């Protein structure tokens, strides 16, 4: 049943966010520390074990993959609800600070990724295939 997949996803999400909150409280931070990341790892682990035992039926998988595919539309909705006015009105400090940090980080990302490319760590991944179309 499709709902089993979605319920599994919901369970992992809630447990992950809960653990993230507890972790934040433990180290004295007023924020959720990696809750979504923890939830992702829980889902990966749950799926791995359920697939091994043959519990992950195609129908059940659909309950998860639907939400994974809804991801881009949700991001578009998120973009449409950003406070773009504040960003534009932030003036030169906001613009320069943001632009400077993005530019610097892009250069560092480029450096690191060129370095790991040279060590051949990334060779296994077949690059170049375009992402699935949205339709």
């Amino acid at each position, binding site marked *: 049943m499709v709902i089993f997949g979605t319920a599994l996803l919901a369970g992992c999400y809630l447990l992950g966010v809960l653990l993230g909150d507890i*972790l934040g409280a433990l180290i004295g931070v007023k924020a959720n520390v990696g809750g979504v990341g923890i939830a*992702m790892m829980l889902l990966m682990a749950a799926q791995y074990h359920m697939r091994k035992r043959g519990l992950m039926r195609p129908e059940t998988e659909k309950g998860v993959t639907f939400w994974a595919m809804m991801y881009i539309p949700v991001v578009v909705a998120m973009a449409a609800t*950003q*406070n773009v006015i504040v960003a534009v009105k932030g*003036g030169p400090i906001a613009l320069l600070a943001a632009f400077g940090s*993005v530019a610097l980080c892009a250069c*560092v990302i480029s450096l*690191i990724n060129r370095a790991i490319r040279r060590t051949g760590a*990334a060779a296994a991944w077949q690059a170049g295939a375009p992402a699935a179309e949205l339709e």
Partner: protein
Amino acid sequence: MLDKFMHEIAENQLVAAFAVVGIIVWVSNLLARHLTGGRVHGSAIAVLAGLALAYWGGLVTGKTKGMADLTMFGGLALMGGAMMRDFCIVATASEVQIDEARKAGWLGFIGLFLGTVLPFIVGVAVAMAFGYTDPVALTTIGAGAITYIVGPVTGAAIGASSDVMALSIATGVVKAILVMVFTPVLAGFMRLDNPQAAMVFGGLAGTVSGVSAGLAATDRRLVPYGALVATFHTGLGCLMGPSVLFLAIKAIAG
């Protein structure tokens, strides 16, 4: 007739949002195919269109939630809110190849650390260049350059004034938007074409909204790898901002 239609939309906001986003994505795909010959990814155009609509919505209503402040499009706030975004990000984990993720775990940590410290330094330097000397203001603006959540959380913890907080949030929002827009443009330069690279990117670029939208517009298969790391970014920033980073700035400027 039109009144009735508007009434139905206002009564069924979330469903209306699904339809609106569907139309935005459809038009964006058409533009991508026919105007750019497929060179620009449809979702990159869709995210840009979303931002443009958010700007327009903000202009019309004078409020803070972009298009969602128009009653007709109120459902966008739920559809694009943190709950749905995080739920869908978690769902993308079902596509992660565990071996690929394991290979780059430590790279993700290095990326996270650099992605917290480097933007902070840039933010503080810019604030100093514009004449700020107060360690609280410097730290808050620097923290805003990490993400727009770390900024206000740090500011609130160390007692920043509201105009500095607003500036800090603005810095973070501009950063998120820049990451959304420029990730597909700079993907080649950043060698962003494999899971390990996406994890390094997720740590360094930080801001979950920027990373997730940017990767979605570059190559959807990379989204879970980047997001897996980026979700720890805000937590690490909130941890370091009011503590280590503030103390460091206090030692230098105070």
